[in-house]
């Protein structure tokens, strides 16, 4: 039996629906724009569904007219290598800083966490000096992406790694396992959920990054964010293809979010609650 809603509940539902509309409308607009031609986008039917579904916009943005396929590949490479870097370096240093025992470990931990409070802006010009010779390669972005995301990775891992009982190491030690084997074959598998949480956070940071990407990439290694920003200038006359570019750039994150929305939300909460 359905419970009847009170007037208050109906008002709440109405309010939530209105905000739902405001959240989804720009996305709806992007999808329909990607299937229209410029005339229709600026004509009377700018809001409605496309009269003719122009899938050719996608082919145009992906291959011939645009270079989205190229940008996509570059973004995938940069993001993938960055994630390997932050996971590996982040795990190793989290292990050394939080599992092992030595003088000064707290000081080093604080030192790295302080890096989170510093915005990238502050390092911009000296970074150009370091990375200038690399701008024809993917390293010009991967290096700063890894470095700037190490603190948050270590912080997210720290909450998990200190909860693992030391009996694990003791048992491994008695069985004759060395420290590296213990770290990588016994503790590491237990840290996979934490590593995923950190990786999703870093993925969203890196995939969506614009400032460094616009400074440190030359044409062949350009990433999606910079690429579509340039397209918006280049395609002044072809808004449909630009829309298609936007959709293509958004799909990977959208699909990730739809498949694991709970996990993505958890990651972003973990990343925000850092202070």
């Amino acid at each position: 039996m359905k419970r009847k809603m009170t007037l208050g509940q109906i008002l709440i539902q109405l309010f939530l629906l209105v905000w739902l509309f405001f959240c989804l409308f720009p996305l709806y607009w992007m999808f329909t724009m990607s299937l229209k031609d410029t005339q229709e986008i600026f004509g009377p039917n700018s809001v409605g569904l496309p009269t003719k579904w122009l899938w050719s916009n996608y082919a145009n943005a992906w291959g011939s007219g645009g270079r989205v396929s190229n940008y996509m590949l570059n973004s995938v490479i940069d993001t993938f290598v960055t994630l390997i870097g932050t996971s590996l370096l982040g795990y190793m240093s989290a292990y050394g800083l939080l599992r092992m025992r030595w003088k000064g470990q707290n000081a080093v931990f604080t030192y790295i966490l302080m890096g989170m409070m510093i915005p990238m802006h502050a390092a911009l010009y000296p970074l150009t000096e370091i990375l200038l010779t690399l701008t024809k390669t993917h390293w010009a972005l991967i290096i700063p992406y890894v470095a700037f995301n190490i603190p948050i990775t270590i912080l997210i891992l720290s909450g998990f790694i200190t909860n693992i009982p030391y009996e694990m190491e003791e048992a491994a030690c008695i069985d004759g396992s060395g420290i590296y084997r213990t770290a990588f074959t016994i503790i590491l598998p237990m840290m996979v959920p934490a590593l995923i949480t950190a990786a999703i956070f870093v993925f969203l940071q890196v995939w969506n990054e614009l400032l460094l990407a616009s400074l440190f990439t030359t044409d062949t290694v350009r990433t999606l964010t910079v690429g579509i920003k340039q397209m918006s200038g280049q395609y002044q006359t072809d808004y449909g293809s630009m829309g298609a570019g936007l959709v293509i750039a958004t799909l990977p994150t959208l699909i990730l979010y739809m498949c694991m929305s709970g996990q993505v939300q958890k990651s972003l909460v973990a990343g925000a609650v850092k202070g």
Partner: protein
Amino acid sequence: MKRVLSNKWSIMVFVLPTVLFFTYIVIFPIFKTLWYSLLNEIPAKVGDASHFTGLTHYITMFTPGRRNPFPGAVVNSLLYAALSIFVQLPFSMFIALLLADGPRGESFYRNTFFIPVVISSVVVSLLWGRIYKGLLPQLFEAMNWQVPKNGFLGNANTKIWFSFIPSLWQYVGYHMLLMYGALKTIPEDIIEAATVDGASGAKLAFRIQIPMIKPMLKVCLSFSLIGSFKLFDTPWVLLERSNMDLPALSMYVEMFSNHKYSYASAQAIFIVAECLVFTALLNWVFRESDGKPGKELARK
């Protein structure tokens, strides 16, 4: 066992690569920026003519004048912070309170409201750019309202406001989720007891729920303050290339268009200092509510 975990050599293998890499790419450049900001101009540009000038650039930065856009840029970023704190956060809180109360479709709404957060800010900005150019003028005409003469991003006085809207819109979902998560950790029996005592709706929210999630409010506040000072992506995409109406934009233009490296470095350092000062300020304001719930009661 203890010996294995304190082995100096393996500690170095685990920690040293990260520390060196992090220091070289993150920490070292910050100090270099600080050093550059104290020179008249960097050696790479002027060679031997480069010399120490102390705080000159910092003074120039805040010397009022028609041709110095930086003070105005700082004011704009503070306006954005105010909008974020007094409009975006209360609105997010309102949604979080509604959702935490468990209406029908709770998790569907929460998941959907969060979608804008995961989308790239470039896509969001370009999308809003189209909305300002294509959709809003049509809407205004249909409503018989006056469309601004050069479009929504064409008026020098108001364009900055329109460039604020996309990122304010985008991060409502983030704040909502943070607050919602905190609200959900309030023990059920506290809410129940308060309800039995006759608190409901606004009273319950202001007397019980909001005070109980103070630590999360601090997170949201520092998130929006620091976000305001660093705000770059959205206005950079929406406004013209030479725009200097926000600190980060100003720094970017001074550095990469005007090639005043030292002056731009001073602006960068100012942005960092602003973030640190406001973080410290927030810590001070919220000093009592950090894990000492009894303290406030004890003082009464």
